[in-house]
């Protein structure tokens, strides 16, 4: 007759971690906010046109005029970083949003409806799991050409099953909870319970988990650009910038490669911290 309380270990873990982690959480939020603002207002902030070629000022070191120096075409690295934030952030954002929506829908259908539909969807997920997201993205590039569109669509599909499986699992465990039976007994319809009550209970957890995908997607999209299969020149993109700047490395021009590389790392770290913190916070709100 003792009450089922969340295990002590879990509670113990949350206590001290939350406080310390919180400061990093806010720092990360700040970093991401700054990057997002820079991306949105890039035309107003960037000191130069990101594609402005100046062949007489290539590979300059940082100066008052060019805070982060210039690249092999004399383009302002800072301006390219600011504009590059657009594709760097937009791509993963779209993938996370699409895959989350798609995944939640599929997971909801599979988990709630069950039966043969669940089996078919499960098989479909299994097949997609066997194709790593980067592989799907590479295939999509081969099929539909380079740029942001094909990889983003492909990766949305690649990541959706992960979201869907989590959603399905949560929906299943949620569906077996007495509160769902209670709604049924009260006369509420199945779809109403699924969409209005169960889904909102599940979405935050799924959302928080999806946030963690942002980092992976960003790294993978940048990797795709690095392979020359992603965002194409002259569009400023962090991954493509690293790719372009690679040639300069032999000449000892490290800055044009390091600046976007560091930016990628910082954003991924920030997003992961935020995602984990969110999962922690939200996960803590629902009885385990």
């Amino acid at each position, binding site marked *: *007759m*003792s*009450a*089922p309380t969340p295990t*002590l270990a879990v509670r*113990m873990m949350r*206590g001290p971690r939350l406080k310390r982690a919180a400061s990093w959480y806010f720092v990360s939020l700040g970093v991401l906010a700054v990057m997002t603002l820079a991306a949105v207002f890039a035309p107003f902030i960037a000191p130069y046109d990101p594609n402005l070629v100046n062949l007489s000022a290539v590979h300059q070191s940082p100066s008052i005029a060019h805070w982060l120096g210039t690249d092999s075409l004399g383009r302002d690295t800072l301006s390219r970083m600011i504009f590059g934030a657009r594709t760097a952030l937009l791509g993963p954002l779209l993938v996370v949003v699409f895959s989350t929506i798609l995944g939640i829908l599929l997971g909801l259908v599979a988990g709630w409806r069950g039966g043969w539909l669940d089996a078919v969807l499960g098989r479909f997920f299994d097949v997609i799991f066997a194709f790593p997201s980067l592989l799907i993205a590479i295939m999509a590039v081969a099929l539909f050409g380079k740029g942001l569109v094909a990889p983003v669509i492909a990766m949305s599909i690649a990541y959706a099953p992960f979201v869907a499986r989590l959603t399905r699992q949560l929906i299943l465990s949620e569906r077996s*909870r*007495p*509160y769902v*039976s*209670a*709604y*049924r*007994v*009260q*006369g*509420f*319809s199945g779809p109403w319970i699924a969409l209005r*009550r169960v889904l*909102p*209970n599940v979405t935050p957890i799924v959302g928080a988990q999806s946030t963690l995908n942002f980092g992976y997607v960003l790294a993978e999209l940048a990797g795709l650009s690095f392979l020359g299969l992603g965002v194409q020149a002259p569009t400023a993109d962090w991954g493509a910038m690293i790719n372009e700047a690679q040639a300069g490395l032999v000449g000892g021009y490290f800055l044009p490669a390091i600046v976007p590389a560091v930016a990628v790392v910082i954003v991924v770290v920030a997003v992961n911290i935020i995602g984990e913190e969110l999962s922690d916070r939200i996960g803590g*709100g*629902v*009885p385990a």
Partner: protein
Amino acid sequence: MTLLDISELTLDLPNGNRLLDGISLRIDAGETVGLVGESGSGKSLTARAVIGLLPDGARTSGSVRLGQTEVLGASVTQLLDLRRHTASMIFQDPRAGINPMRTIGDHLTEALRLCEGKSTAEAKTRATELLAAVRLPRPDDHMNQYPHELSGGMLQRVMIAGALTSSPQLLICDEPTTALDVTTQAEIVAVLAEQRASRGMGMLFITHDLNLAASLCDRVYVMSAGRVEEHGTARAVFGSPQTPYTRRLIEATPSIALSAAETAELAQRESAPAVAGGAQAAEPMLEVEGLCKSYRRRGKAPVDAVKSISVSIPRGGALGVVGESGSGKSTLARMIVGLESADAGGIRVDGRDRTTVPHTRAERLAHARSVQMVFQDPYLSLDPRIAAGRSIEDALRLHSKLDSRAARSRVLELLDQVGLAAQYADARPRTLSGGQRQRVAIARALAIEPDVLVMDEATSALDVSVQAQVLDLVADIRTERGLTVLFISHDLAVVRRVCEETVVMKSGEVVERGQSVQLLAAPQHPYTRLLLDSIPRPAWESDARESAAANA
């Protein structure tokens, strides 16, 4: 000789919370000491402190002497030695307490092999002996089985055997039977008592069940909020409790002992046996006829959860359903409320057919107005995201055309009826206690004004004192509204507090039915008798009964 001597034990968490506050407790060799109290009172903490299992970073003061050794501040080797030779512990949930990925044999022999340095064969022989000692049917086979292949009762025997491998002087039992059925509990308690006697061990027995403590223990300590409230011989504490807390606890504990009035009534009824016809004359509110349900599982034999059950409850009546775990009680309830479809048979509520799972909106609403249900687990039966008042309001507005203001005031009214202040309307379930949640669940069921209310183990998850409050509430509502109630429980004592009639279920069938009091006084079916005999009684009472029986 004093085996365990705890004095002024205080335990603080790093965040400053004081979990144990000046506990003093003593156990002599061969003595059984009970530790009772409500959930969270610190029973388990005290027990764990004895073998040096403290929460990370906890600060302690006072002393815990086990045998010749001071446990607090003992070195690692001292602690290992204590655990290997002096004291063993049995935990509440045998399923969680035995590593699911290792065999029973491994569980039993690992300490022998790895701590005592016994050979594998030696350890195996010893383990098999122990399994036989705790009365497991096929010790040799069990050695190679995995925990999931055994039932809860068998696992608890394994756990006991495991605790006995080291021939401890002190056996600590932390609610060893809470997860088990009454009948199984009785068997386990018997095994424990036998082993205690044959080995002359001291025993610290933790339980929230006062009857159990009374039946087994020489002395008891009553704990509340990290303190010892009262202690003394079992008979003294339960017979004449000194503190109000203990008194409340004892009052709240349901008992199957019949009161004088009940005995008198029973005697009267026996003399005029034809009276029963009067109740049957009234049109039944709930009528269940030949209901069957079997679950088909892929690749396994189907389970006949409910086999042709017929029950009926007169308008305003209350029927109790008791039976051990898996006897089909919940399945019956779920069919009645329309969560599950019946394979055969019929359900009628107030004369209307309610057999099928409702499909259309109209059917759903009609069914919902006929029967409502309160679920067992108050922590899971409320939507975690929806405030208490809101969930009641949802139900109200689904079934009536109330505007939001009217709905709101109705919500407050309902909350008031179940004894909750208006402020709780906005509370999230998480912030409510178990008892409060169950009140909200009841209010929510009442909001629809159903003809029949089904309560499936609605109080099983609650502490005795809280359970008593909820049971009183149900009784009140019944008298106020004339509600018809189907009350499911595994606890005969609880059922008889609420219901005048009771049916006993076993493996999907009703084995006995009748007036609750009559059932208790003169059980007909052997299973009912077993059930009754399994309920622990204070040692002095059963002595009295036995002598009474001998006299007869």
